[in-house]
């Protein structure tokens, strides 16, 4: 008689289960172990934002990119009404350039991709954000910086599904939380690395918040950041804190490829400024 197995249990049958790398963590975990000597090499990073100015001296070039726009009437639109234009493009505001430069400062050898989702129209904004995330997952990105959010409840389920998909594909989604009292998606989901600005300036010092939804604190106040047309400006925002964590994650991943998001969070939490071994 054939053995009856509950659904999903088949993959755990003897001989079928894949092997996974045991995470050989030192005790305590040190920054030297985590990213000492790492440059971001071999890690693909997407900045989902306003575009990136590839020629900006602080950016150091962009490997590739895509512009995503909501234009359901276009003959090139996909079933969600999105038109994708691959290739180089400008930064509309300067913000994507700022994020890209912060990541590069931490991980100069990363492979950088610009996914431009902010544009001239707000129509379909949530769908375009979602398409940006799907592009990053489909194109094998390892780290995604998402310094944008929506408070629109209609997108709760859409983003939840995509964030789970990214999590199961080991894509590290680093998302800035906004300051508005209402919820913001996808930054409040457990599957992302949600980040807000703290007072520090050291790009390799960060906090772990024991009272989420916002999990990490990183520099984002009164920073000198890259801006459009080769300029630099002084700026404040949680959206500049997220790329600091994205940069650190990229660095760690280049030294320890194959980490899962939960392993990465374990490492970050252990290396946080407010982490203590005597608690």
């Amino acid at each position, binding site marked *: 008689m054939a053995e009856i197995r509950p659904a999903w249990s088949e993959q755990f049958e003897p001989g079928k289960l894949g092997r996974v790398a045991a995470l050989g963590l030192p005790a305590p975990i040190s920054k030297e172990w985590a990213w000492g000597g790492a440059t971001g090499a071999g890690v693909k990073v997407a900045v989902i934002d306003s575009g990136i100015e590839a020629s900006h001296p602080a950016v150091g070039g962009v490997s590739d990119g895509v512009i995503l726009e909501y234009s359901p009437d276009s003959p090139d639109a996909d079933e969600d009404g999105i038109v994708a234009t691959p290739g180089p493009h400008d930064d509309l505001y*300067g913000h994507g350039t700022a994020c890209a430069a912060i990541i590069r400062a931490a991980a100069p050898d990363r492979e950088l991709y610009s996914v431009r989702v902010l544009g001239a129209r*707000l129509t379909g904004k949530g769908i375009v954000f979602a398409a940006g995330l799907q592009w990053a997952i489909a194109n094998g990105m390892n780290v995604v910086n998402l310094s944008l*959010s929506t*408070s*629109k409840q209609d997108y709760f389920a859409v983003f939840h599904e995509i964030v789970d998909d990214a999590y199961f594909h080991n894509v590290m989604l680093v998302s800035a939380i906004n300051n508005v009292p209402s919820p913001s998606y996808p930054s409040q989901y457990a599957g992302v690395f949600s980040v807000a600005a703290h007072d520090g300036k050291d790009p390799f010092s960060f906090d772990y918040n024991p009272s989420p939804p916002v999990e990490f604190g990183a520099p984002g*106040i009164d920073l000198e950041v890259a801006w459009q047309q080769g*300029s630099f400006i002084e700026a404040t*925002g949680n959206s500049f804190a997220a790329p600091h964590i994205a940069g650190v994650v990229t660095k760690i991943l280049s030294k320890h490829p194959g980490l899962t998001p939960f392993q990465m969070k374990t490492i970050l939490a252990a290396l946080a400024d407010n982490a203590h071994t005597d608690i």
Partner: protein
Amino acid sequence: MSDRERDVLREVAELAANMGPALTPAAHLELLKSITTAAMSLFGAAACSLALLHEDQEELEFYVASGAGAEEVVGMRVPLGQGLAGYVVSSGQPIAIEDVTRDPRFAAAFAAGTGYVPKSILAMPLETDREMLGVIEVLDRRTRGAGLEGSGEMEMLSLFANLAALAIENSRVFADLGRTLFEAAGAAAATADLTEALEQVARSAPAPSAELAELAALFNRLALVGPEERRLATRIVTEVVSFVSSGRWQR
């Protein structure tokens, strides 16, 4: 649902659409202006303004402003695809920039529109959990260095943004009362048939007629003047109504 019942619903929708503007909370603009003035005062800022997303979702229009350059900036439109205000509305993220004149495109664009070119800007999205409405901007605040830096300032401005967003959403409900009422009723209906019928009415509900809306806006303004003035207005309107209904007035 019978044709007769549908007709009644349609009439109710039309009535609601025409009544909406008259029910708009009095002093809506004054309320928003008081929010920008309060924010300006609290931040010790040179100016504070509200820009709202235009219907086409491609432009922001400055709607209310207090302080330096206020008169010039109200009514000004900026494309969503450029500038700090556009970034804030597109990304949903607040931002503060010091010395905006170092942004080469910014300075020229802003100076061309108003007489006042700020050095610093703190900008926050105006949104509810239903929609993005626009942005509130504080120009040249003096709270920097006063212990409120960074996220403290943003948290404070977010309280003003929230107030303004609720006030704007509230007044918009009345501007399109017919549609709003029936959409709400459709969402709450117990059966799919009734939902469909109510949503159909909502879709076909007329916008308030421009003349009635104008008249309603005048009545709203009358609510703000003194009792003597209101009595005078009532007498004039009564005379006008009696004159046009007497048949003595011919177009």
